[in-house]
């Protein structure tokens, strides 16, 4: 099981500290879109709002579902596209 162990040391979403192993496990459980994964494990929900991990996770989804990236639903991007402290609205 050496390969499984090594997946655990590969960080995919840095903000939420999620590894390739955790993401692949969820894909295998049936979460087949980025937004579904985001709802269960918070990938892309951190400070960077998925700027780093979005491309990597889309690639993992494409590999494991055997589909092209452009045929997978893209995550919804909502404003604010970067986190704003609530005090800025005072």
């Amino acid at each position, binding site marked *: 099981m050496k390969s499984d162990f090594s997946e655990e040391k590969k*960080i995919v979403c840095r903000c939420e500290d999620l590894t390739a192993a955790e993401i692949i496990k969820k894909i295998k459980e049936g979460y087949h879109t980025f937004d579904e994964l985001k709802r269960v494990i918070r990938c892309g929900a951190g400070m960077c709002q998925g*700027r780093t991990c979005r491309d990597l996770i889309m690639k993992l989804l494409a590999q494991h579902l055997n589909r092209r990236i452009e045929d997978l639903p*893209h995550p919804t991007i909502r404003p604010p596209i970067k986190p704003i402290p609530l005090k800025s609205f005072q």
Partner: protein
Amino acid sequence: MRYQLGIVGGGPAGMMAALIGDRFGIKTILIDDNPALGGQLIKQTHKFFGSKDHYCGYRGFQIGSILREEIAKSKVEVITSATVTGIYPGFILGLHHKERYQEVGCDAVIVATGAKEKFLIFENNDLPGVYGAGAVQTLMNVYGVFPGRRALMIGSGNIGLIVTYQLLQAGVEVPFLVEILPEIGGWFVHAAKIARAGTRILTSHTIISALGEEEVEGAVIAKVDDQFHPVSGSEVTIDVDLICLAVGLSPLSDLLWQVGCRMEFIPELGGYLAWHNERMETTVPGLYVAGDVAGIEEATTAMLEGKVAAISAVSHLLGPSDELSAMQREIIRELDDLRSGDFSQVVSRGLRRLYDRP
């Protein structure tokens, strides 16, 4: 406060677009999230190629200074350290600046937000000492910070090659550069320079893992087969304290997704980007793109795209004219010329695919 033209991103594309807007008397606001205008130009210490019209012979940061001075002399309103957090109906820009959220209305918008660095999945890729090549360039060339003692560069595109050279200039050893493809991606002239300086460029190689407990103390690299899978038994451990990723850029298109532009996936241009035509018009009337967000290229084409986008915006605001369309056609022709070389084949193929999707 209301403006005729709002430009998001003050790199080469956005700055050039602002200057064109100003030249036609358009009330323009230029917004950037960095402390100073210039985008990636501020850290580019290499000289530009091309013709005199395109600032050849100048170093990137000098081009940034020239444009910044021209903008300071113009009527363009500049806000730095400000983030556009959303674009709402009627082109209301949500703006976060000095811990305050405010809204700015515009009649037309140019999105010139540039690109983000791609990341790579490998073992221990979160250890301190793993950097994007752009980040290393910022540390060294903008802040004068020594990023490490011995570096492994990943990726042989022009950024990987140029940053390797700049690391060597700063006194950092770069014993190896690995490239997963069988051929070097960037220009021969840059590759030859670093090879002469002693960097071994290993094609068909990749990184397997970073080594170390608290920070990078080494790396394992390996040969890959034609399916890009590591060849077992070919692993080599190297002694480095810095791992630099130059594995490509992708357009920073979040605002364009959010505003509802039709998006297209074009790998040759870096991934998802807003559909646009040669005049840099997106599917949202009055909204234009320019620079890396419209497909990954470099600063010279970004500046020209900034001009093209601004002329489209001026036509939209003031009504079309023969003068504007002649000027725009001329710049589009310059762009075509710049992209006619062998090195632009991939970009040209990507743009053709984009333009062919009406």
